[in-house]
């Protein structure tokens, strides 16, 4: 048994128990999570080139379809939901490589695990930072890709909303896979094999909701199912990712 097996939060609980000052302040775990979040955002903005990669990839994959299928907008409109979601899934998969890799290399993740703070919260913060840097921009870019595929502008708010909810679930599910693949030298294809089957429900509901939004119909039913997946991912995925990181650090 290694020292990383200490239950998370033991240190902080011991620190905070005797002092009443802490009681009036927000939970230390949340403080630490907020710090981790801002740290990741600052680091990412210092390496802006990396931020653009998933977006460029998303645009590139979207562009492949008119070239491969047909430039006719009526045909492209019919496949637009599928194109958007497959491109978003692949772009988010590509971005997962950056989620833990650098921090695992320079030992930051190890320090997180040893810090006595809840690793679950820290990884949740990291994943949210990752989503803010990749998922949210993808969701904001999706309308442009959609319109290039002949989708009417009236569908844009719906597409953004669906993409925002869906990419949250994608990032969190992907975090488990990325954490599991940390222990390996080359993990590109394996990461796809681990993550994509687990993300299929997101693809199904996301693409269906987008299809309904493009057709101008109510997309609430699939969006609600998508939101249910996102909620489930928010509650369970950080726990899984924390366990996976501890396994990878052993």
């Amino acid at each position, binding site marked *: 048994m290694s020292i990383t097996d200490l239950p998370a939060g033991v240190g902080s609980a011991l620190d905070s128990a005797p002092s009443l000052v802490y009681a009036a302040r927000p939970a230390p775990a949340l403080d630490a999570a907020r710090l981790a979040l801002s740290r990741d955002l600052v680091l990412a903005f210092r390496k802006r080139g990396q931020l653009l990669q998933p977006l460029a990839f998303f645009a590139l994959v979207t562009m492949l379809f008119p070239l491969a299928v047909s430039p006719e907008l009526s045909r492209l409109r019919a496949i637009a939901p599928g194109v958007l979601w497959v491109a978003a899934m692949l772009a988010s998969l590509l971005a997962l490589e950056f989620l833990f890799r650098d921090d695992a290399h320079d030992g930051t993740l190890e320090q997180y695990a040893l810090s006595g703070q809840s690793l679950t919260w820290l990884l949740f913060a990291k994943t949210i930072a990752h989503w803010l840097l990749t998922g949210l921009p993808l969701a904001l870019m999706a309308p442009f890709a959609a319109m290039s595929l002949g989708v009417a502008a009236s569908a844009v708010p719906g597409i953004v909303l669906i993409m925002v909810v869906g990419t949250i679930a994608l990032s969190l599910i992907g975090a*488990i896979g990325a954490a*599991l*693949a940390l*222990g*390996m030298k080359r*993990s590109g294809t*394996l990461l796809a*094999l*681990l993550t*994509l*089957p*687990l993300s*299929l*429900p997101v693809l*199904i*509901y996301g693409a*269906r909701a987008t299809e309904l939004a493009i057709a101008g119909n109510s997309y609430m039913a699939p969006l609600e*199912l998508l939101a249910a*997946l996102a909620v*489930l991912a928010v509650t*369970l995925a950080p726990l*899984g990712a924390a*366990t*996976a990181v501890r*396994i*990878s650090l*052993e």
Partner: protein
Amino acid sequence: MRWTWFHRLASPPYLYGLAARLTPWFAWPAALLILGGLFAGLVLAPPDYQQGEGFRIIYVHVPSAWMSLMVYVTMGLAAAVGLIWRMKVAHAIAASCAPIGASFTVAALVTGSLWGKPMWGTWWVWDPRLTSELILLFLYLGFMGLRAGFDDTQRADRAGALLAIVGLVNVPIIHYSVIWWNSLHQAPSVLRFGKPTIPGAMLAPLLILLLGFTLFFAALLLVRVRAEILQRERTARWISETLSG
């Protein structure tokens, strides 16, 4: 006190010997049930009024599909036991389950596709059951791929176990999503059979084969677990004592 049997199971030499003793008790009934069930299903059962002789492939297809799921659940539970109680042999069981389950999944896919050709007129249909089965195959492949990516057995065990548990949580979600997806996209040209009421002469061989396949899996698992234990404990002294003695 009541848990001593559980702790004894956790000992590799004990499980190795137990598996060796139990294997024939599963293998022989499995062989008899499978042979008997195949005879009853392929020869004795009447042909279907609608599908003719072609329906007989269900006698291999349905048990394979059933086993593909059951093995996944077994694998997930064994992995959970291994991860929670740090039980090495439970990880060995989970690792042994994966290739067996993947083979059953491939068998279910191949027989389903063979059945689809005369019935649907095409080798592959994006039917919810076929699609879920294909996804299950990818889950198995992911589990095996992840395990293969680690050099260290213990890390492979724990990482694989976590993935199996995550997969276990996800299998029902994926399954119902695929059903929901299919109910919206099902092409009208494809024949959809309702849940048929199978007459007893057709059902009995199926039940026999289900039991036979389950015992067959148990026997295979016991053999594989022994091989897995041998490989993991290859440096242990009890192995040379057992094998030479």
